[in-house]
């Protein structure tokens, strides 16, 4: 019998990856290619959407030839993507009308400040469960309309299409200017600030508020459903799933039951908890988001706590301070001392995300004495990730009736043993790492394979999940509380550093 595979396309912030999974959910091959990051001004981050499309055109055949299979053996395609990044392209030529504005870009900071004053957070929270932030797509669309001549009119005339990256890729895969499908999935749409979180449709009041014409918007579809067949690159193969990357990781970690949570530790970290079909409105600084929607089944929701700086603090320690030569060495350096020596680092490099949402915060190192060595600083760097996770977990537990019982982790930082033990210690929860580390890709593959009948149901996927490592809490409760108090005091000291206007 001919072996069949599911193809997962993970379009991330720094690279695009194409991964094949076999029927047992095992990774068979990886092809990947990085794309350029453009920083035209401080705080601006852009991608070239055409470059991303070309990269995909290269890695798809690479993945196939690496395993020596043909297109017919691919049963379905699933897409996971960097979220919130905004792509605009010409409906007739298929060319992007400007560079894609990436989720990290903070050019809309002033606009966002204005929105929070008027009409205020409540207007947005009621409709899309997001408070205004530079993080989301809609303020970027408004910014583009205000800064690119004629763009708003072209959008009204239906000449320009909007989408997040999965929309762009699906449109191109299914024919592009020649009848390509212009669709998005509910998880990605839930990050635009334009979708009504309850009805999963574009919200007329939000569209009107941001001045976004509906002619330019993709159709919102379930995350898991047969969308259509690819025409280019993988002719005839059905595209059956699309999910934002963090939702894909939740799916890949098989967090299908309410209360199950995962945290992906990368440049930033994203803790997401399944809240089932209940829409939980956060009162403690979390985002309510769509976890996934399978065809016509009820929508599954999630609470999410994004943390802006975790792995990137280690990179800063390596590249800017030069105290280590590779990221894993942070653990070696941290192990040269017993504890943090009273030193704490709050990495509010561009403000703090969940649960604080303070754009006026900046990073601080507190507790410096002549006793502190680079070893203590290394500890403080790792502990910052632990405490930031603790703050988000506390917010989750306060918002939801579902107390977390364990935390499933993935991402590059899970190879740091000291950090994983510290996490278990400060959360007072078991921390569990799964056998397949590529949870984003795996989630997209699971979702696509489920829709294509490659796997029958969620239970089968759950049985594919295996524990590769587990860290158990082992910290004196009094010490945990003391340290947490110290951390909170450190956070207080980072707040309000940025004042409304500096010297001219």
């Amino acid at each position: 019998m001919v072996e069949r595979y599911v193809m997962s396309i993970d379009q991330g912030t720094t690279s695009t990856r194409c991964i094949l999974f076999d029927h047992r959910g095992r990774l068979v091959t990886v092809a990947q290619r990085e794309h350029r990051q453009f920083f035209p001004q401080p705080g601006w981050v852009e991608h070239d959407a055409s470059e991303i499309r070309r990269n995909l055109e290269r890695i798809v055949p690479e993945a196939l030839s690496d395993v020596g299979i043909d297109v017919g053996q691919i049963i379905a395609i699933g897409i996971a993507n960097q979220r919130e990044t905004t792509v605009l392209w010409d409906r007739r030529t298929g060319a992007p009308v400007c560079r894609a504005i990436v989720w990290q870009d903070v050019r809309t900071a002033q606009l966002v400040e204005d929105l929070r004053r008027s009409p205020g957070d409540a207007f947005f929270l009621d409709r899309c469960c997001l408070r205004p932030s530079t993080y989301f797509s809609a303020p970027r669309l408004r910014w583009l309309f205000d800064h690119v001549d004629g763009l708003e009119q072209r959008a009204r005339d239906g000449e320009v299409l909007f989408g997040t990256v999965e929309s762009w890729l699906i449109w191109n895969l299914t024919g592009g200017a020649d009848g390509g499908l212009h669709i998005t999935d509910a998880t990605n749409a839930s990050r635009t600030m334009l979708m009504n979180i309850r009805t999963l449709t574009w919200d007329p009041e939000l569209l009107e508020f941001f001045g976004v014409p509906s002619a330019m918007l993709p159709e919102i579809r379930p995350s898991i459903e047969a969308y259509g067949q690819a025409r280019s690159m993988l002719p005839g193969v059905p595209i059956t799933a699309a999910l934002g990357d963090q939702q894909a990781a939740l799916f890949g970690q098989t967090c299908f039951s309410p209360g199950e949570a995962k945290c992906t530790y990368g440049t930033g970290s994203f803790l997401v908890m399944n809240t089932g079909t209940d829409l939980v409105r956060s009162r403690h600084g979390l985002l309510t988001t769509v976890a996934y929607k399978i065809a016509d089944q009820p929508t599954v929701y999630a609470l999410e706590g994004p943390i802006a700086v975790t792995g990137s603090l280690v990179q800063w320690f390596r590249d800017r301070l030069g105290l280590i030569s590779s990221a894993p060495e942070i653990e070696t350096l941290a192990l040269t001392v017993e504890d943090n020596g009273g030193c704490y680092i709050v990495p509010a490099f561009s403000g703090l995300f969940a649960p604080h949402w303070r754009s006026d915060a900046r990073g601080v190192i507190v507790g410096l004495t002549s006793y502190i060595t680079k070893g203590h600083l290394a500890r403080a760097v790792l502990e910052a990730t632990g405490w930031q996770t603790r703050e988000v977990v506390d917010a989750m537990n306060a918002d939801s009736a579902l107390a977390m019982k364990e935390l499933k982790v993935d991402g590059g930082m899970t190879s740091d043993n000291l950090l994983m033990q510290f996490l278990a210690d400060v959360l007072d929860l078991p921390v569990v790492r799964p056998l397949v580390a590529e949870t984003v890709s795996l989630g997209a593959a699971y979702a696509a394979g489920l829709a294509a009948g490659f796997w029958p149901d969620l239970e089968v996927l759950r049985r594919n999940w295996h524990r590769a490592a587990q860290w158990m809490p082992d910290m004196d409760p009094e010490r945990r509380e003391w340290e947490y108090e110290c951390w909170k005091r450190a956070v207080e000291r980072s707040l309000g550093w940025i004042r409304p206007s500096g010297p001219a």
Partner: protein
Amino acid sequence: MAGPVQSIERAAAILRLLAGGPRRLGLGEVASSLGLAKGTAHGILRTLQHVDFVEQDEATGKYQLGAALLHLGTSYLDVNELRSRSINWADALAARSGEAVRLGTPLEGKVLVVHHVFRPDDTLQTLDVGTLLPLHACSLGKVLLAFGAEPVEPLVDAGLEEYTRHTLVRSEDLSRALVEVRELGWGAEVQEMAMGEAGVAAPIRGHGGLVVGAIGVSGPVERICDTKGRPQPALITLLREAARAISRDLGAARW
């Protein structure tokens, strides 16, 4: 015995030249200082750069001594770096073999477990990263001994402790076993550390083929070995693939 190898003499001269001052040197300066053709000097510099003895400044293209020279003599590879670079391959090995996987490096006459992947059956298991194992009684240790990552003599001098009746306690037996490990390219332990337990391990090589650690699979003897008490060939194949993949990632060219 053959005479001195000219290219190594020239490489040594280049390193001395770069060590001689605080300033980075351009290709032309290196070549003219030593009376070498530019092409020759460039070839040697490229090779030295490949083994990290020399670094080239991206902006100016000039050369200086590389960080690897500082760690010469300690065959330095950060154990946490080793774990980070091995993690995907170790996971894949556990998934395919269905058994627990460990990585070991030498530490003060023992094997330090630097990474551990649970047997993927979701039974209760405890992470034993940081545990020290006896070199002569486990497959990880035998591999480290066989490929020179740790000297044998001090171990034998101190006396080989007996863990089970299968433990190799006589130095002749250990020596013979190590010769076999070198010939096969992998090592086994069958009920030598604990009755009912067995394991196989293969070397992980870094730059130039130097053995920096070992990766092993272990479990109940009836699953690791066939009915004759010999390790399952299919398991050895998976193990050696993983070891080779990690070695390639670490910069070993031919393994």
